[in-house]
Structures are given as C-alpha cells and as structure tokens.
C-alpha cells in the first residue's frame, strides 16, 4: 500500500507492506539513528518522536504514523549536540548503541519539563536500557545539563 510520511519535515512516499513497522521503514530510508535493539518494546533503542511524543518505532506501524510529525535524531541535531555533550563529558557513552534512544527521551523530557526533578529524570529514562553503563553517567550528565540551564 502507498503511504506518505512526514519525517524531519520532509515528505517521504513509498509502497510498503501493511505490516511494516516504522522502525524498518525508517532504517530502509537510511535514518540509522533508529536502532534495532530488542524489537519487542523493551529497550528504547528505536525511540522516535511522533508529534513531539517519544514512542517505540519497533512497535508502531509505518502506516499508522501517517498524519503525524515524525522526528528522528537526524532532525534534532542542535538539541542532541547540546544534551549529548553533557552525557559524553560524564563518560556515559561506551559502545554508544543506546545513545540515540536516550537522546530522544531526554529531548522529549526537557521539552515537556525544562526543570525535571532527579526522580522525574530517572522515571522518564527508565524505558531506555544500556548494556554497558550503570546509568549513573547518563544521570549525572542530564542533571548537570538541567542545572546549567537554570543558571544560564
């Protein structure tokens, strides 16, 4: 079937199988920030924004994403660089595979609540799994990012 999606403000049309996931579609279109982790809604590595809300693209049908604004990390470079620098400074990135999913969740969080409590950061990012780190680096980075915004 023919679909038309709005990805990072670009119109993308394609013929797809109706049961194709948004994750597969985005990767076929070379949006490689969207990772294939578990593909069972458990790890957060495939996160993208749909109308500003983070969702798991491995569990959303491409056809259902029609009519929404889809944002991947490729379209969020400025925010990603700003937040990413704080996470990198804390040594949180090791293999880096989970990073795009974390960044999508963090961007959504700070858009929704510019001054989240430590507890809110923890809850908001609890759907993003990392196999390498103990999450402390990501937490420190995001807390520092929040605090410098407060003083800026």
């Amino acid at each position, binding site marked *: 079937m023919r679909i038309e999606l709005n990805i990072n403000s670009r119109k993308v049309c394609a013929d797809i199988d109706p049961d194709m996931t948004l994750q597969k579609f985005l990767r076929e279109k070379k949006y490689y920030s969207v990772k294939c982790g578990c593909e069972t809604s458990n790890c957060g590595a495939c996160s993208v924004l749909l109308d500003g809300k*983070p*969702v798991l693209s491995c*569990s959303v049908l491409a056809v259902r994403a029609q009519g929404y604004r889809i944002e991947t990390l490729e379209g969020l470079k400025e925010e990603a660089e700003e937040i990413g620098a704080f996470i990198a400074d804390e040594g949180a990135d090791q293999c880096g595979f989970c990073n795009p999913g974390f960044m999508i969740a963090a961007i959504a969080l700070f858009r929704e609540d510019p001054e989240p409590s430590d507890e809110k950061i923890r809850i908001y990012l609890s759907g993003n799994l990392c196999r390498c780190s103990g999450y402390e680096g990501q937490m420190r980075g995001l807390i520092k990012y929040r605090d410098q915004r407060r003083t800026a």
Partner: protein
Amino acid sequence: MIRFENYIRVKTVKEAYERNQSFQNVVGGGMMWLHLSEGEYDTLIDLCDLGLDQIEEEETYLKIGAMTTLSQLENSERIKEYFGSTFEDCLKHIVGVQFRNSATIGGSIVARLGFSDIITLLLPLETQLRFYSQGQISLQDYLSGKNQRDILEYILIPKKKKTIRFESIRRTYTDTAVLNVCGTKEEDGYRFAVGARPGVAILVKEDEEVLFGDNQRGSKEYRKHVYEILKKRIKESLEEETCG
C-alpha cells in the same frame, strides 16, 4: 511478529465489530502486545480514527475511551482529582514513557494478561466495561467470561472518591510484576485485587483465600508470603489516610 495482508482504519464501531466477526481479522489497539504475536491475519482493523481516546466526566462516572493511552491516564488531572496519585504510582512501572504513549487501556483489558497492573488497579474501583454488542458488564464478570470478539468502547469508573493503594513487587523497576495488589477500604472491610498470581487478577475480601502458582518470576510460596506483606503495607497506608 504479527503478519497481515490488509490494513483498514474503520470509520464506525459497527464496522469494526462486523469485520472482527471473521477469525481472519484482528483488532489493533496500541499494538504493543499484538505486534509480538505470531499470528497471520487477513486484515488489521485499526480503531485509531474512532475518537475513543478521551477521558470524559459523566454525572456518576469517568468515561474513558478504549483507545486512551496509559500516559493519558497517568497524567490526567481528572483522574488525580478522584484517585490521587494511585494511577501514576501503578502505571509508572510499565516499561517506559515511550511504551505508555502507545499502549491503550482497552487493549490492556481485552488482552486479560495475568501480570496486568492495570486490571489489578481497576478491579477495586467497581469498573464497568461498555462493549458494542454485549453492552455494559462489570470488569469482574468480563474477566471470568469468554472472549466474544466484541469491541470494547468505554471503560466506566464510578466517581466515588475512593482511597485506593497499589503495591507491586518486581525484580527490576520496569519488569512485569511478581505480584501486584490494589486495596481499598469499604464499609464492611478491605477489598484486595490480586494479580500476577500468575493468573489474571481476582477481587477478594481480607481473609479470603487466594490461589497462587509458580512461573519463572516466582514460586507459589514466595507469592503467598509477599501477598501478606503487600496487604499489610496497603492496610497501614489506607489507615494513615483515614486517620489523617
């Protein structure tokens, strides 16, 4: 992963019901559970255009559309007004924000998952379900009945300002529960909904016996032990609230 040949966004609930009478078709809610199924279908019936994603207030109950997401429930001021932070306390454990932005209350009920926190949460609230064909039935009756290939339209929660408490034990913060319990105090004593037994939740009085079983998350004996502790925590918390 689920396979299907055709996809349709139905325009009426009647159309969804009629199409769903064929065993070759399947209804999609949030798709979070369904997409993991190994089923092969002719058509996926998508309910997303039916406007069933609102939390409304009627005279005696809150009327929640079946396609309302878990995030909407978690963040709803209307729900907080009646039930405090209990919905939030319960839902925050379910996978992650991204997941809860898609999973729906309707799919959570119809799937009748044994480990469901949502069913455990809704049982003590005397929740009623409104289906397209069967009409209105209680959640409690629904759980013990057969699946009738009906379409769940609304979840109705009586607007009694009930004090409820939800507690669960999980191996990690967002894993499915080893046991979940939701309690409330009625005029004639406490009521507890007990889920992840590992069977689907049941509603019991304080001293009523609950049947537990084993699975890879915990043994029957462990669950029995944990149940007494969660019950005690809930009772203490409910007493505190009543005494101010």
